[in-house]
């Protein structure tokens, strides 16, 4: 069967380490996302409260969730790249 990748990928000694980190970061984001949904559903009026320069909690929390995802992604990439170089040697382009 033809199930192998289109391009041969080299062995990655850091796979398990990265997967563990990924799961931890996923749960971190998941918890914050859940808090947002819970406030929106069960305490909707709390979302009206101004929290930053007059903008309400709904706007600030919503935008923060988007920005937080970007920041987490950048941190994850930085840490993973470092670990890959450490565990596999600097074979791949950074």
């Amino acid at each position, binding site marked *: 069967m033809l199930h192998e990748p289109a391009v041969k990928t080299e062995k990655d000694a850091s796979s398990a380490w990265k997967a563990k980190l990924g799961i931890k970061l996923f749960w971190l*984001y998941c918890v914050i996302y859940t808090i947002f949904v819970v406030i929106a559903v069960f305490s909707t009026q709390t*979302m009206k409260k101004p929290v930053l320069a007059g903008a309400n909690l709904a706007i600030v929390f919503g935008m923060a969730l988007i920005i937080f995802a970007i920041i987490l*992604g950048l941190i994850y990439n930085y840490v993973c790249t470092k670990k890959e170089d450490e565990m596999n040697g600097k074979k791949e382009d950074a």
Partner: protein
Amino acid sequence: MNYVANPIAIAIFLAFVGFVLGISFYFARKAKSAEGYFAAGGNIHWFVNGIAFAGDYLSAASFLGICGLIATMGYDGFLYSIGYLAGWIVALFVVAEPMKRLGKFTFTDALDSKFNSKGIQLMAAISTLAVSVFYLIPQMVGAGVLVTPLLGFPHWVGVVMVGIIVITIVATAGMTSTTYVQFLKGGLLIIFSTVLSVSVLHKGLSTETRPETFVPRVIDASSVSPVATVEYKGQSFVKVDEDGIANWWIAQGDKLEEAQSKTVTSDNEVLYNGAPKGDNKFKSVGYITKLPDGQTKTGKLGIFKYFSTIQGSEIVRYPKSKIAKFDDNGNHVKVFVPEITAGSDLMIPGMKFKLKSNIGKLNFISLMLALFLGTASLPHILIRYYTVPSQRDARKSTIVAITGIGFFYVLTLFMGLGAMTLGVIDLESSNMSAPLLAKSFSIVLFSIISAIAFATVLGTVSGLIVAASGAVAHDLMANFLNIKMTDKNKVRAGKISAFAVGIIAIILGIVFKNMNVAFLVGWAFAVAASANLPSIIMLLFWKKTTAKGIAWSIGVGMISSLGIILTSPSMYTQLYHLEASAAPHMLNNPGVISIPLSFLTLVVVSLMTQKKK
């Protein structure tokens, strides 16, 4: 609204589409092998792939649908932005690298990498097709929506045009051309959405209206002789004849407030505000009636000041729930009733999702769950992991995608709220809000934005059709049915499948014409999250997962989510034209039931089918 084609708009549009087709033909030479056709040879640079990811993802639903929902429903539209972006967290942290490691051309390859099971091959291919088709519907609806104001054609012409162009693109060059089209479009969409958002902030907010915006007149009821009076849900509507044109007014005590109406006469003539469409009586809507501190104009505003000013304002909206529908002497009449809404209520959840009721809460949670888990299970997103050379590139391109998409989603707030407050909303199609907002600034900006949005549809539809054709040619024909095909024949089978899926997409795009595209995409996410995600997650993280467990989980997830959608109140009202109360349940988004059910099925079936040691 009556749209008249503009020569500048047509020229820019044709140039853009011509350029896109040029790219397609140029890359055709790279699509001779199956690797080239389905996975762009696995040699796309991670940055190009990342922006192409953004291009794939920022589909008609994001640009047209979310902006339209924010323009009409306020913050509830922004919830889609938050959920869509959050879904990338699952894609990045859980799915990206393993998918790259396990698969070859399709998502089925990855799922089946450990088992070589006919059941998985069949179910995963069917699920890929189902999700692709569900995701194709809003894209095609969006295409028709765009072509109407841009070129002055009817909706169905737009749908057919996109279908033909996309089939040409996919049938010529497959994934390589799709990738570069998406790269170009994704980049341009982000740049020009920034231009549009900055223009909104620069203009600020004002209680003065544009001449093109509908502002109702209010007159004494005693000053006119009504032609007819109709009672609808406790409200009186009065038909008044002015210079031979009879339109509907809303009774407010001893006053009458002018309304906008659409009448389909017994001989099928359509009248807008009592006159034919060409008379341009039917106008765009939405304006501010009150700004904080008695201001009438703010001048340019900063980001947070813009939000806080809207929170302290009052805005005229035209909710769908307020539309009065009645018969008048055999004519079907729709009267659009305005509602003055406090900005503070518009800027929190609750306009679309009725969070005071339990079913409203459940629908909201269900949608947020589906959006969070759906991204990582969309076939056209998953296949993009196979176009880059390494796992590291897969990860990096995901991060480029998250950055671009996240930035764009923040912009949707400004574009949506801009459309709401600058009076550009088309009462018949909220999907047009962002392009019409651009038109209120300049015809050139409108033309560029519309051409990009059209390319958005082209690119996303191309990606979906590649994914669907891969499911047919590679998963079903080559793997499941064991049909021996040369590389060339496999590509040919993919192209024939692309043609067939394209035709189906055209038909569905015409059928679902009037539904909001972001709402439709919410369904595609729910089907993807229910059918695909449980098997991906469990395959990666639960050692007892069996082939039968995966196949059953996909089947149950797909059937339960589709079943709930097809019997939902939204489907009853908007597609079957029945009362919502006739629907067997009140759930509009299936995720909260179908996703756990799919997980549960996988666990139970896997435990029942463990190999004896």
